[in-house]
C-alpha cells in the first residue's frame, strides 16, 4: 500500500513561489492501475516524483510498504528506489552506453544478484515486453517504442512494489502507445503489478481502474471503475 498524506511541494522559496502540490492525499492499493490526469502544469509529475523518491515534499508524508520515506537518508532512498520502485520516464532515459540487455541487467546486478540470475531475469523480462531479439542493440539504434519497452523492462527487473510511469507514451505514435498500454494492462492483470501512470490522453482512460484528476496542485476529482466497468466518482 502506498500512502501520500497532505503532500505539498513549493518551488522557489523567494518572492515568486510555485505551489506545484498544494495538499494532496492519496492512497493506492496493491494491484491498482491508477491514472493521474490533468492539464499541463497541474502537478502530475511532481506527485509522481514524490512517490518515486526522486524528490522530497516540502511537507507531508509518504509511506510505501509501511516505510516512511521521510525517515530515509539519501543512501537508503537510493536502495529503496533500486529494490522497491520502478520508474519509467517520458523520454525513456536509458543509459546510451549500455545495450538494451545491459540497461536491464544493471539494476539486477546492483541489487546483488548473480550473473546467472541477472541473465535469467533479463531475458525473462525482455521477452515479456516483447523484445526477445533486439537486446544487443544500443538505445540509439532502437525506435522510440522499443526504447520505452526496454525502459519498462529495466523498471520491472527487480520486481518493484510500485511501477511509476510519467507520460510513457508522450513521444510515441498511437500504435506504439497501445503496445505499451496493453503491456501495462497485462502486467497489472497477470502479475498484479501496482502501476501509477501519468497521462493526459483521453483514450488512455479505458485502461485505468482509477483516475485521479489534478488541477493547480490539488486533486480535483477521483473516479473508480465499478463492477460493471463504469467509471464512477468516488465519495
Amino acid at each position, binding site marked *: 500500500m502506498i500512502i501520500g498524506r497532505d503532500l505539498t511541494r513549493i518551488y522557489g522559496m523567494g518572492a515568486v513561489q510555485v505551489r506545484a502540490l498544494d495538499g494532496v492525499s492519496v492512497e493506492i492499493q496493491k494491484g491498482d492501475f491508477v491514472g493521474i490526469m490533468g492539464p499541463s502544469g497541474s502537478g502530475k509529475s511532481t506527485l509522481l*516524483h514524490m512517490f*518515486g523518491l*526522486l*524528490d522530497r515534499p516540502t511537507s507531508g508524508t509518504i509511506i510505501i510498504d509501511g516505510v516512511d520515506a521521510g525517515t530515509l537518508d*539519501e*543512501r537508503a532512498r*537510493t*536502495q*529503496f*528506489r*533500486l*529494490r522497491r*520502485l520502478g*520508474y519509467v*520516464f517520458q523520454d525513456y*532515459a*536509458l*543509459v*546510451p*552506453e*549500455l545495450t538494451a540487455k*545491459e540497461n536491464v541487467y*544493471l*539494476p539486477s*546486478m*546492483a541489487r*546483488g544478484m548473480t550473473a546467472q540470475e541477472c541473465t535469467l531475469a533479463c531475458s525473462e523480462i525482455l521477452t515479456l515486453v516483447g523484445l526477445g531479439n533486439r537486446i544487443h542493440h*544500443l538505445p540509439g539504434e532502437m525506435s522510440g517504442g522499443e526504447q520505452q519497452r526496454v525502459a519498462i523492462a*529495466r*523498471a520491472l527487473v*527487480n520486481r518493484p512494489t510500485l511501477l511509476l510511469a510519467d507520460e510513457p507514451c508522450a513521444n510515441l505514435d498511437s500504435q506504439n502507445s497501445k503496445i505499451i498500454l496493453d503491456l501495462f494492462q497485462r502486467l497489472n492483470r497477470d502479475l498484479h503489478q501496482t502501476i501509477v501512470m501519468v497521462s493526459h490522453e483521453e483514450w488512455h482512460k479505458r485502461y485505468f481502474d482509477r483516475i485521479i484528476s489534478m488541477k493547480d496542485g490539488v486533486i480535483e476529482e477521483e473516479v473508480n471503475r465499478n463492477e460493471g466497468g463504469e467509471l464512477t466518482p468516488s465519495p
Partner: protein
Amino acid sequence: MFEESKVAFFLAKRSILRGNKGTLSLTILIIGMVFVNLIFLPSIITGVAVLFNQQSIDYSYGNLVIEPKKNQVYITQVSELQRKLERIPGITGVSPRYLTSATISYKGNVVTPVLYAINPSDEQGVLRIATKVSSGSYLADGDTGQIVLGFRLAGNEDEKLDVVPSLGGVSVGRVVDISFNNGVTRQYRVKGIVTSNSFSVDSNAFITKKEYEDVFGIEDMANQVLVRTIETGKENEMRNTLLSFGVQEKIWTWQEKSANFLNQIIGSFNIINFIGTAVSLVIAIVVIFIVIFINTVYRRKQIGILKAIGIDRSIIIKSYLFQALFIFAIGTLMGGVFLLLILQLLAANPIVFPGGPVAPVVDLPLIVRSTMSLFIVSLIAGYVPAWITTREDILSAIRG
C-alpha cells in the same frame, strides 16, 4: 562493497569501450608523456652525477686521499707509507704526488696553473689521465725537463677559443719556462697534451716527482697520496682498514674531497628536478581532472538516470575512479614502452657531457616513486570531478 565495485567496474568498462575514443587516447598519451617526463629528467641527472663521481675518482682523487698531519705541509718518508699501503688487501694503486702552483710562460703568455708532480707508473695505477693523451706522449718514470699540459692550458692561438687563461696554443715539442715559488726557473719541453674532459686535469700541468724533488731539493715526501681500491662505495670501511694498519695521516674519501663542487651541482640539479616533477604532476592532475570533469558533466543526465534507478552515488564515483585508473595504467604502460625506446636510442647515441657520455640511470626507486605519484594523482583527479558532479540532485540532472 565488492558488489558495488562490480557494478562500478561494469559501468567503467562500458564507458571506456563505448565512450569517445579520441579523448581517451589523448588522455592516455598525455599521462604516458608525463610518466616519461617523471623518469627521464631524473635519470639523466643521476646519470650526470654518476659520471661526475666517476670523473672525480678517475681523474682527480682515486678512492682515498691521504694528506699530511695537521700543520704539516708534507708527508715524510712517503715510500715507506706507499709500501705499507700497497700491502693492504683491497688496494690496487698508490700514487704519491706534489701539488704546487707555478708560473708558466710561453711567447708572452703567462699563466699560473696547478702543477702536479707524479710518479707516472704509480699514477697510472690510480688515475686514468695517461689514457687521455691527445698528442705527444705521457710522462715516463725518470723523465726530466719534460712537461705534460692539459689541453685547455695549452690553449689555442685564437684567444677567443680559450675558456681558461692559456699559453696561447703551445704544441708538443715546444719549450715553456717555469718559475717555481722557491725562485728557481727552468725550461721544459712539452712532451704531451692531455684531453680528459676533467676540468682539473685539462687546465693544469704535470711533471715527474723526480723533477720536482730536484727543483726543491727534497726527497721521499709528498703533499698527497692517492689510493685506488678495488671497490668503489666502500671508502669508509677502507679508511678504517687504513687506520687499523697504522696510517696516521689524514685520510679523505673522494666524496669528501669533491663534496663542495658535487653538492653544488647535484643541489641545483635537484631543484630543476623537483620543479620538473612538480610541473609534470600538476599537468597530469589538471589533464585527468579536466577530462573526467568534462566526461561527467557531459554525462550529467546519465548520472541522474543512474541515481534515479537506484545506483548509489558511491558506485558512480567508483566507476569514474576505475576509468581514471585505466587511463593511469595504460598511460604508464605506454610511457614505459616509450621510455624504453628513448633509452635504446640514447644507448646508441649517448648525450655527451663535458666529462663523457651520460648513461641515464633508471633505478627501481625512481620507477616506484614516479608510478606511485602518478597513481595518487590519477585517483585524486578522478575522484574530485566525479564527487562534484554526482552531488547534483536527480531531477535537475535528468532535465539536463
